[in-house]
C-alpha cells in the first residue's frame, strides 16, 4: 500500500495540471485547419496554375489568414500575461517549438495573403486594384506575385506543413506529459490538419469534380490518421509506466468515452465510411461528412490537450 500526501495546492497545478483550457485546443484546431488550407491551396495552385476552377475554390485561400487570426486571438486569450506577447518577437529560441511557431505564424500571414490574392478571380482583383490605386507599390507587388505564383505556392506548402507539424510538436516535445510525448504527434496533427482543411473546403459550393477529388484525398488522409493514431497508442503502450498511465487516460481513464466516440467513431470512421459509400455510388460528397471530420479534428485536439494534462510523471514519484 502507498499513502501519499502533499502540502502543495497550487492553482492550475494541483491536484492535477489544468493550465490550458478551451483556448489552446481551439487554436490548435484552427492552426491545423489553416495548415491544411495552405497546403491544399498551394498544391492545387501548382497542379492547376491557370485557375480553371470554381469561384468558391478561388476565394477559399482567403480563409487561411482570417482563420489564423481567429486562432491567434484564442492563443492570445490563453496568455496569462497577454501584454507581454510582443516578447515572442524579441528573440528566437531554437529549442522552443512555441518560438518556432510564433515565427512561422509571422510567415503564414504574408504567404497566405499573397497566395489568396493571386488566387482571387481576376474580375474581383481588378476591381480591388482600382479601388486601392492610391496605395503605393501595390501595382508593383501585384505584378511581382503574379510572376512568382509557383514560388508562392511552394512557400504556402512549406509554411503550412510547418504550421501543421509544429502544433503537434509543441505537445510532442513535452517529455513531462507522457500522453503527448511522442514523435508521432507532429505528423498526426499535420495529417489531421490537412484532413480538416479538405473538409472545410468541402463545406463550400465547389464543382462536383473538385469535391470528388477532395473527398478522395480526405479518405486517404483519414486512413493515414487512423494509422498514426494506432502507432501513437502502440508507442505509448510500449513505453514506461508513465506512458502507460498516460495512455490510460484515453483507455479506461476519464477521457475514454469522449476519445473513442467523438474522435475515432464520429470524427474518423463515420466520415471514412461515408466518403467511401459516396464514392462507390458516385454521389456528391455530402456536407455532413465534412462537418464530422471538422468535429473530429477539434475533438482530437481537445481531448489530447485535456487528457495530456492529466498525465504526468508526478504520480510515479510516490513509488520510489
Amino acid at each position, binding site marked *: *500500500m502507498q*499513502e501519499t500526501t502533499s502540502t502543495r495546492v497550487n492553482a492550475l497545478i494541483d491536484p492535477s495540471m489544468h493550465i490550458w483550457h478551451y483556448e489552446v485546443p481551439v487554436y490548435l484546431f484552427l492552426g491545423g485547419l489553416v495548415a491544411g488550407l495552405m497546403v491544399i491551396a498551394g498544391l492545387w495552385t501548382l497542379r492547376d496554375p491557370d485557375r480553371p476552377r470554381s469561384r468558391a475554390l478561388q476565394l477559399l485561400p482567403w480563409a487561411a489568414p482570417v482563420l489564423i487570426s481567429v486562432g491567434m486571438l484564442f492563443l492570445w486569450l490563453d496568455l496569462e500575461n497577454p501584454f507581454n506577447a510582443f516578447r515572442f518577437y524579441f528573440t528566437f529560441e531554437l529549442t522552443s517549438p512555441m518560438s518556432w511557431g510564433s515565427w512561422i505564424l509571422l510567415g503564414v500571414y504574408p504567404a497566405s495573403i499573397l497566395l489568396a490574392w493571386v488566387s482571387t478571380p481576376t474580375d474581383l482583383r481588378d476591381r480591388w486594384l482600382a479601388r486601392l490605386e492610391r496605395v503605393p507599390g501595390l501595382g508593383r507587388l501585384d505584378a511581382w506575385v503574379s510572376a512568382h505564383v509557383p514560388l508562392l505556392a511552394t512557400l504556402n506548402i512549406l509554411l503550412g506543413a510547418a504550421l501543421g507539424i509544429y502544433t503537434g510538436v509543441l505537445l510532442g516535445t513535452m517529455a513531462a506529459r507522457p500522453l503527448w510525448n511522442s514523435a508521432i504527434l507532429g505528423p498526426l496533427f499535420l495529417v489531421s490538419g490537412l484532413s480538416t482543411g479538405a473538409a472545410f473546403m468541402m463545406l463550400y459550393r465547389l464543382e462536383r469534380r473538385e469535391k470528388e477529388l477532395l473527398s478522395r484525398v480526405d479518405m486517404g488522409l483519414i486512413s493515414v490518421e487512423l494509422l498514426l493514431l494506432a502507432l501513437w497508442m502502440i508507442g505509448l503502450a510500449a513505453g514506461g509506466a508513465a506512458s502507460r498511465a498516460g495512455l490510460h487516460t484515453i483507455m479506461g481513464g476519464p477521457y475514454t468515452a469522449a476519445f473513442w466516440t467523438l474522435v475515432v467513431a464520429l470524427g474518423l470512421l463515420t466520415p471514412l465510411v461515408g466518403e467511401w459509400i459516396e464514392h462507390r455510388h458516385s454521389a456528391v460528397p455530402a456536407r455532413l461528412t465534412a462537418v464530422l471530420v471538422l468535429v473530429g479534428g477539434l475533438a482530437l485536439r481537445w481531448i489530447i490537450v485535456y487528457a495530456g494534462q492529466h498525465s504526468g510523471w508526478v504520480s510515479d514519484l510516490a513509488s520510489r
Partner: protein
Amino acid sequence: MKRRQFIRVGGYGAAGAAVAGGLTTDWYGRYGNPTADPGTDGDRVVPSFCELCFWKCGILAHVKDGRVTKIKGNPKDPLSNGHLCPRGAGGTGLLYDPDRLKKPMIRRDVRGSQVFEDVSWDDALGVVAENFERIKAEHGAAALALFSHGYGGSWMKHLVKAHGSPNIAAPSYAQCRGPREVGFDLTFGAGVGSPENTDIRNARCLVLIGSHLGENMHNTQVQDFADAIRNEADIITVDPRYSVAASKSRWWLPIKPGTDTALLLAWMNVIIGEELYDRDYIERYAYGFEQLAEHVKAFTPEWAYPRTGIEPDVIRRTARAMGAARPATLVHPGRHVTWYGDDTQRSRAIALLNALLGSWGRKGGFFVPSQIQLPPYEYPGYLKPDAQAADRPAPSDYPLGDQVLAQGVCDAAITGVRGDSAIKAWMVYGSNLPTTLPDPENTYKAIQELDFLVTVDVLPAEIVGWSDVVLPEATYLERCDELYNPWWREPYVAVRQEVVPPMYDSKPGWWMARELGKRIGLPEFFPWKDSIEYAKTRLEAAGLDCEVMKEQGVIRGKPGPLYFEEGAVPEFYTDSGKIELYSPKLAALGFDPMPTYDHSKLEEPPEGYYRLLFGRAPVHTFGRTTNNRLLSEVYRENEVWVNRDVARRWGLEDGERVYLQNQDGKRSSFSAPVKVTGRIRPDAVYVVHGYGRRAPKLRFVHGKGIDDNELITRYKVDPIMGGTGMNVNFVTFLRAADVVEDEPAVDEPVVVAEEVVA
C-alpha cells in the same frame, strides 16, 4: 528590482494598466536577466521572542516601511538557535489577520449572542473596574478568578494577586503537564519544567511515550530530536498512531491506548530482572529499590502482552536497548500527559524507569539547568487572600495538585457544585476555555451563571463571544512583556520588544493591567511608567546591560555544569533527599507508593465506536493559529484518521466527510474529511486539536473540521493532583450526507447583529 504587481482584472480588464506595466519594464528587452529581489529584508530588524506557542523562541522581526515582512530565528537565542518552527515563521499571519479584535467592546445582548458595541478604552476599563470592585464588596476578592495562558498573562496574574484572589488557573496545568511535574517531583524532587531539561540531543537511546515530536513542534526539542536521529540514537516510540516520530524510530510500539503503565512496569521488570539498571547510581542516590524490585517482579512482559498488545520479545529487546545505552537513555516525560486519569502514576513510572537507567542529571538524559539571578521588581507584598482557592470540592482533594485546577475554577461558578457558588467573575487572558476545558457544555453553563466575564484576547475566539467586556490585546509583535528568564541548559534572559506599534485600538496587557489597577485602588502595584521602564529596573538590578539587551534580544550567562559527572551537584528535594522509587509521601496519602496497573479499569469502546485521540499539527498551535491564513496554506482543516480496515468495514472513502458522535450522543458541530490510513490502530481514531471552530467571526476557520473538545463530554480526574484525563471518550461515524443539516450546527447563538469590528 521591485516586483511589478498590477492586478489583472479578469485577465484583460486592466488593459491600460497592463500595457503600461508591460511596456515600461524594459520592453525593448535588450537587457539581460537581472536577479530579482523580493525586497523583504527589513530596514529595521527587531529582536524579540515568539508567542505563537508557549516555548518562547528568540526571533528577529524584519520591518520594512512599517510592515513586518518576515520573522526569522535569532541565532543568539539558545532556544531558537536561529531556526524557527513553522508557526514562529508565520507570525505575520496573526499580526495581519483581518479578523483581529480591533476595539474594546461591551456586550449588548444575552451572553453568547455575539452582539457587541465598540466602546472607548475608558468606558471598557470603567465597566471592568466597577464590576471587580462590586463583586469584591459583595462576595470577597476570591470571587474573581483568572484563567491565564501565554506570557503576557504575567501582568494579569499580578493584578489579580494584588486584588487578593487565589483563584488563578492555567489550563497548562490540569489539562496539560501537571501530572508530569507532580510525578517527577515525587521521584526526583523536581519537575522537568518548561523548557524541559531533557538532553535529547545527546541521548543514545530515546524513548517517546506518545510525545509526537515533529508534530509537537517545540522548536528546541525538535532540533535536538534531529540531532539524536543524526547521531543514530536508538529511538523507541510508543504510540497507537504511526506518528512522524514513530517513522524516525527503530522501534514503533503501536500500543493499545491507555495501557502505557503496564508497558513501563514490564520494562522495569526486565531492566531489574536482567540487571540492566545502573546499580551504582541507584545505590548512591535512590531510596526504595528493594521495594520496587519486589513490586515489578509480577509485571513480566508476558503479563503486559495481553494488556498492551506489545509482544514480550519486543518488550525485552527494547528494554535491553535502553539498558545498553544508559545513562544516555532518555525516557521522555511527555508534556500533554492528561490522558486517562492515572497520569501522575504513569509519569511516576516514566520517572522510575529513568531513575533505574541513571539518566537524571546525566548526559543524554536530563541535564541540570541553571538560571540567571534576576531580582524581582520591588512591590509592596501581596495581601494574603481572603479565601482558599475554590478549585476543588474539599481542600484535601487532589492533595498533590500544587496549582489551581482550571476545570475546578470553572465548576466553582456553577450553583450547587461548590456550595453557594464561590466564583462570580472571570477574567480570561489568552485561553479559549470552550475549546480547552473538557465538556464545553459545562463551561457554557458556568459562564451563564457568572456575574461578570472579561476576556483579553487578540482574536474573536469562542470565549470572546460569551464575554461581557472584550479587551483587544496588541499581539506579541506590538508589545513589550515581562522578561523571560528560564531555567535552561545555559542561563539567559530574553526580552520581548515592540516590533511595530499596536494596530487598531489594541493595547498591550501591561497597560491594561496598570490602568485597571489604578481604577480599583491598587496604584502602588503599578509604579512603573511602562513595561520598558519595568524591564530596565529589573535588568539594572541584575547588572545586565539594557542596550545590549535591546540590540540582541538576549543576554546569555555562563553555563554551569550540566551533568553530575561534570560536577553538577546531585540534589534531590524529596523528603528523603534521595530519588524516591518508593514514595512514602504517596503511601501516607493513601495512594500506591509505586505505580500499578489495573486493566479492569480500562474501558473498551462499545461496538462500532473508537477511542478518540488527538494531538498537534506542526503548523498550528491548538486553535490559536487555525485562523492564520498564512499557516493554513499548509494545513487548512483537520481530518479524521481512520484505520484502513475500519474504513473498509464502514465503506468510508478517503476524503469522504463525516461527523463524529460520542458515547453520550454528542455530535460534532461540523464534519471533517476521513483520512483512510494504515497509520493508526483499528480501535482508535485521531484528530488534530484546534478545528471545528464555532466562533462565527473567525471567518477563515469557522466551520472547518471537527473539534475534539466538544466530544470530550467525559473525563477522568487524577486523584493525586486533579488533572483531567481526556482520552476516555469513544466516537462513531455519521456520514455527512446522512446528517440532517437543519439541526443547528452551532451550539451558541450566531446572531451576528454587527461586525465585531467597525
